[in-house]
């Protein structure tokens, strides 16, 4: 983590110690800020009592409980399906639109750009209720389909704007160079543009999946019979109090995430990110 990056020429050390130094310390503090609550959460997964706030002793019971809870397993499954599907769709739709907006001339470009951000400005509850009214009027039964549509709406502004920001800061000279070297348009896109956009696409997918996984409001209005997501299940536990079972589940999810991070992405992503670095 303290890697100083690739060596640079010239008086780069000034930049490193000055700008980078400050950014390094701030990043460290930020990560402490972001992860300290997670340490607390994981600690409480081992609480022997039923509280997520008051510590009473050590136990592994909650992990056993999660394992045997059929509702939680089912809800986790629903959440993962919806998160992955909606993130993939939102990223695809958002990226296509973002590339068209930054690269092509067409009437109504600004309007579309603004409209794609619209779901962001509508309070989710309003969009949720409106969608529910519309879907039931159209006779669409609530379930995976409606919930995926809802989640795509929530994340498509993020996907569009992230890809758009990346696409607009690309260096057009690279593409011109490729064209000068005889590459056709598709080859240029595939070999030059797309690799440069990969970090943005990846970012947008992960962000969209994460937002979906944690979404409550849109799910409340678009879920149907048998498609209760994890946040819906957890919120419904409020009346009787949330137990460390949920912390245990969160701990397992974090563990799974970190494992995936190191096994798959740790190998593949740095390579991918490097290709566009220089």
């Amino acid at each position: 983590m303290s890697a100083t990056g690739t060596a640079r020429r010239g008086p780069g050390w000034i930049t490193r110690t000055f700008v980078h130094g400050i950014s390094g310390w701030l990043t460290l503090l930020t990560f402490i800020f972001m992860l300290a609550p997670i340490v607390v959460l994981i600690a409480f997964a081992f609480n022997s009592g039923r509280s997520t706030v008051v510590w009473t002793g050590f136990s592994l019971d909650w992990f056993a409980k999660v394992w045997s809870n059929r509702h939680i397993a089912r809800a986790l499954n629903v959440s993962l399906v919806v998160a992955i599907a909606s993130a993939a769709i939102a990223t695809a739709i958002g990226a296509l639109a973002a590339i068209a907006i930054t690269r092509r001339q067409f009437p109504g470009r600004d309007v579309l750009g603004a409209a794609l951000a619209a779901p962001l400005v509508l309070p989710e509850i309003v969009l949720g209720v409106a969608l529910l009214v519309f879907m039931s009027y159209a006779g669409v039964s609530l379930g995976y389909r409606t919930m995926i549509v809802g989640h795509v709406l929530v994340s498509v502004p993020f996907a569009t704007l992230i890809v758009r920001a990346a696409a607009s800061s690309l260096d057009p000279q690279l593409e011109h160079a490729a064209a000068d070297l005889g590459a056709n348009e598709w080859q240029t896109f595939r070999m030059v543009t797309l690799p440069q956009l990969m970090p943005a696409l990846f970012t947008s997918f992960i962000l969209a999946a994460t937002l979906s996984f944690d979404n409550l409001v849109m799910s409340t209005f678009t879920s149907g019979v048998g498609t209760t997501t994890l946040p819906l299940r957890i919120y419904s536990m409020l009346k009787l109090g949330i137990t460390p079972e949920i912390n245990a589940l969160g701990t397992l999810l974090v563990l799974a995430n970190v494992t995936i991070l190191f096994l798959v992405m740790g190998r593949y992503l740095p390579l991918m990110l490097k290709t566009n670095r220089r």
Partner: protein
Amino acid sequence: MRRALRERIETGAMLAPSVVLLTLFVLVPLCVVAAFSFALRDPYGAVLPGFTLDNYRDLFQSVYLLVFANSFKLAATTTLLCLLVGYPVAYFIAFKAGRAAPALLLLLLIPFWINFLIRISAWVVLLGRGGLINQGAMALGLLDTPVGMLGTYGATLVGMVYAFLPITVFPIYAALTPIDRRLVEAGADLGAGPAETFLRITLPLSLPGVLAAALFVFVPSMGVFAIPVLLGGGKEIILGNLIVQLFLEFRNIPLGAAVSILLLAFSGVGILLYMRALGRVEAMK
């Protein structure tokens, strides 16, 4: 000529999915909301057909103006804090973290894989009177008696920054990564100081990301409702709570719809400003 036609078809194909999505699932439902905002209701919350401007007239009561002011203050403060903290973090991840960059980004998202309510409970543990921060400060002799931090505006801001920081970092990171480092180094080679290089090259190039981040934080902050309740005590009424209250608790859908339309108009202006700024930044190149 044929090339132009092909390009046009391609553009159409690229735009079709988003246009269909927006028309069917945003525009149409929005029209429903707009229609509701002029409708009447019965005591049990049914929306009755009819036309009235009363719902909008109701909005000019001092209560609702206060709600708008409260929400604006919260959203603006949150956005400012998130950008101040988020930019350096994105900068570090983009240029300094090297191979660790994807891992750091994912690490930033890890909190989101633990449910929101549980995350907030963790802040209750940290900020509470018997919590780690108070206990730590007392052990170090900095405090004699625990300080009540929950139920304050500060606690709300901690929760807001915690929730929106990742959303700030991501677009800035996405805009920073493609910046050609040779430009920056060229600047440095030409004798520009680090601050000047940053201000004249890096910052302008990353502005689209900064603008996107500001939008991502500001707009949802205007409609937030759970964090100020769970950490700040929910004593200050804001738009998000008002809308939830009108739609769910009061079952006054027409008035809720009117508030939503007003918020939409307000945010629409924000988006247009953002789009204009983005267009200007994109045109600079």
